[in-house]
């Protein structure tokens, strides 16, 4: 911890990485300094009075002062003026953060889902975060997952168009001093102009269930050429993916855009839902006492109507993928599940 930066009010906030975030920090410094002065006046005054007017003898009398119009006017009016300054300043900073309706140089559709973000660029590049790898490797108790990297160019206006597939989430990048809720059924925007290269963490700040604290991503700000190179590489990889076999495509869906791995493991461990290790061809017991052998029909039903059969010991927490998944994709997933012996 850097106490000097605390005192000089550059604060513990991450290095400001966008054009707007510097303005937020200036406002912060004003708030911190004016707040400290107010605190010293109020609490300092109180402490002085405590000592100065301490009761020394039992019959000590106090002054009889009922009010003082001038003092009262001043201590209402001065805070009012300061608060109006803070209001107006906050407004102008807010306006820069919001930039509603402004088109970005780079536009990315961001979809939030329990507990993952999908970033879709105009040219079909798709990034899913977090991954299924651990973020903190040497701590067995850590539940954080490694964030996937989303690349944007420095100096350009970037607009993320947010929405959510299920519940409320909130897209927060501390280094950008900006956040915006992802609301199901609505589109909201998150616009920023990065000025600093580097990796910046994205958190979800609207409570969204069990793995709320896991829902991270990384935004990597690079220069224009690197961005173009990254895009070209991704497009090439996409083309390659189409030549893959069904089980491999299924694996990509499972870990990627459909985000199944958020709730189902493939190694037998229990996350939110049952593991898929050894699922295919084996018996499943349900909460209502019935059971079936897991086959294509059962898996398809579980994807489209998850509440039809609830595996014993698990909550009915999964929502339907109806409308979000194509017929071939279901087949690919089933092929992938078959490989999990």
């Amino acid at each position, binding site marked *: 911890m850097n106490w000097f930066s605390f005192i000089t009010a550059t604060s513990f906030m991450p290095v400001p990485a966008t054009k707007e975030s510097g303005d937020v920090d200036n406002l912060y410094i004003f708030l911190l300094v004016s707040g400290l002065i107010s605190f010293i006046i109020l609490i300092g005054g109180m402490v002085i009075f405590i000592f100065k007017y301490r009761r020394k003898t039992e019959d000590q009398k106090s002054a009889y002062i009922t009010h003082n119009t001038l003092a009262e006017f001043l201590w209402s009016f001065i805070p009012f003026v300061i608060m109006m300054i*803070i*209001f107006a300043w906050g407004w102008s900073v*807010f306006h820069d*953060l*919001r930039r509603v309706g402004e088109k970005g140089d780079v536009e990315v559709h961001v979809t939030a889902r329990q507990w993952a973000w999908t970033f879709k660029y105009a040219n079909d590049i798709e990034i899913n975060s977090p991954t299924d790898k651990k973020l903190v490797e040497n701590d067995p108790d850590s539940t954080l997952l490694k964030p996937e990297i989303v690349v944007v160019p420095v100096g350009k206006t970037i607009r993320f168009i947010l929405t959510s597939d299920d519940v409320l989430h909130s897209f927060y990048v501390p*280094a950008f001093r*900006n956040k915006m*809720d992802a*609301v*199901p059924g609505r589109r909201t925007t998150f616009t920023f102009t990065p000025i600093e290269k580097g990796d910046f963490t994205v958190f979800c700040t609207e409570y969204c269930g069990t793995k709320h604290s896991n829902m991270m991503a990384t935004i990597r700000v690079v220069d224009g050429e690197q961005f173009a190179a990254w895009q070209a590489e991704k497009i090439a990889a996409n083309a390659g993916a189409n030549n893959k076999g069904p089980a491999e495509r299924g694996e990509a869906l499972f870990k990627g855009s459909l985000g199944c791995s958020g709730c189902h493991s493939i190694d037998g461990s229990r996350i939110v839902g049952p593991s898929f290790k050894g699922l295919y061809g084996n018996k499943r017991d349900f909460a209502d006492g019935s059971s079936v052998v897991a086959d294509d029909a059962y898996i398809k039903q579980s994807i489209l109507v998850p509440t039809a059969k609830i595996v014993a010991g698990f909550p009915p927490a999964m929502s339907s993928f109806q409308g979000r998944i194509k017929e071939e994709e279901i087949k690919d997933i089933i092929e992938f599940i078959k490989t999990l012996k």
Partner: protein
Amino acid sequence: MAHEQHNYLNHQKGIWSWLTTLDHKRIGIMYFIAIMSFFFLGGVFALLVRAELFTPGKTLFSADVYNRMMTYHGAIMVFMVIVPGIPAIFGNFVLPIMIGAKDVAFPRLNLMSWYMLMIGAAITGSTLFLENVDTGWTFYTPYSSIKTGLGVIPMVLGVFIIGFSSILTGLNFIVTTHKLRAPGMTMNRIPLMVWALYSTAILQVLATPVLAITLLLLIAEKTLGVGIFDPQLGGDPVLFQHFFWFYSHPAVYIMILPAMGVISELVATYSRKIIFGYTAIAYSSLAIAGVSFLVWGHHMFVSGQSEFAGILFSFITMLVGVPTAIKLFNWIATMYKGSIRLDAPMLFAIGFMFLFTIGGLTGVYLASTGMDVHFHDTYFVVAHFHYVMVGGTLMALMGALIYWFPKVTGKIYSDLTGRISWVFIFSGFNVTFFPQFILGNMGMPRRYYDYLPTFTELNQMSTFGSWLIGTGFLVGLFGVIYALLKGKEAGNNPFGGKTLEWTIPSPPPHENFDKTPVLTGGPYEYR
């Protein structure tokens, strides 16, 4: 003791006489016992939540268990402790006495309010054994309506019933204050505690029904599938937030105004001085109550509401800051040229002002739209509202407990015990919640089960502080038991108070006054 005096405690005997009592003083004590039990439960959850956060990753519980504990901690503390707290316990006990009345206007309704709190609490509490709820105390849709279990229904049903308890208490206090004042007690002569309770009561009566309706709509959506908040059914998830905060913002003042009333009494008594700016304090309570209805949108600056709405709500929120500041200035001006004694209740009053100033000033940060975008839903907000509500309300509650203890029981609460308790609670609060401001700065979101390793030290500090607070309240509880068993006899007016409750015996007789008092001056005439 030679001859036992006749008072409300020995007026009737037996458990049954308590459970059917219509005496506002006994009802106050029943509230005290109930609310302190809830407080204990909420406190245990708090300690567990903080214990889990001692290290990143899994420390003690799984994420599911953590989210549930976090939810119960919040819901219990807000709906069952801080909202009813001071008005139900001390309001019930002192309000009628302070205005020279024999009881509240509707004694039966008063008893019924207590039962509604108990029934509501039982229903909400039953979910702990049936199906735990993990929505957080704000129950935001669509998570609460489609993504989590049916336990949400009894949970909010309980809160709904508790809300009615709050409405009835408010109604009772409003009528009592208007109709039952002793001769000579004009509205400008009622003690500031009564003003505070009166403003609170207005909020309770006007705001709580909105919460009730919101929770009913939530239940309707969850059970009948009516599309109100869930976009899949054609509803609007943000609508819930509007409804919820339309109640819950005024509710934060339901939580703090009574505390401000207590502080006014304590500062006047322990400075032995006429309160500075009586009218300003009294009417600023009303101003806060009024304006607080118009600021709910400041919880929603990043919810997707329009930029214009955000700016408007920011502006009005700033206006609430002014009457809040006025109160602080008045209390401090009351101490000027006073005759100050730092007994335990006064220490709690000073602790209140210290914590409340920090909480209030950081509220200004959050009210400023451009700044709030960074801080919203981070630990900065957690720190802010714990400083104002918990630091504020609980400090006042402890001060009130020690101050009125002799009046209620006839025994003196040991000042030394009170001071020791204060040292732990006050230092504990700062150690717990100050680091959370810094965590918010660094960007740690709230309601996090797991966090990045960079946040570790500050979280550990915070957890350590929670143990100090816990110890402080245990010392406070010890003080209560010790005073009941071994406390010195109090006498009518051990601290030199000027309000009416100090003119009658401790404990007070069954109907408070043998002869109706007649007022000839204001409440704090120290000359």
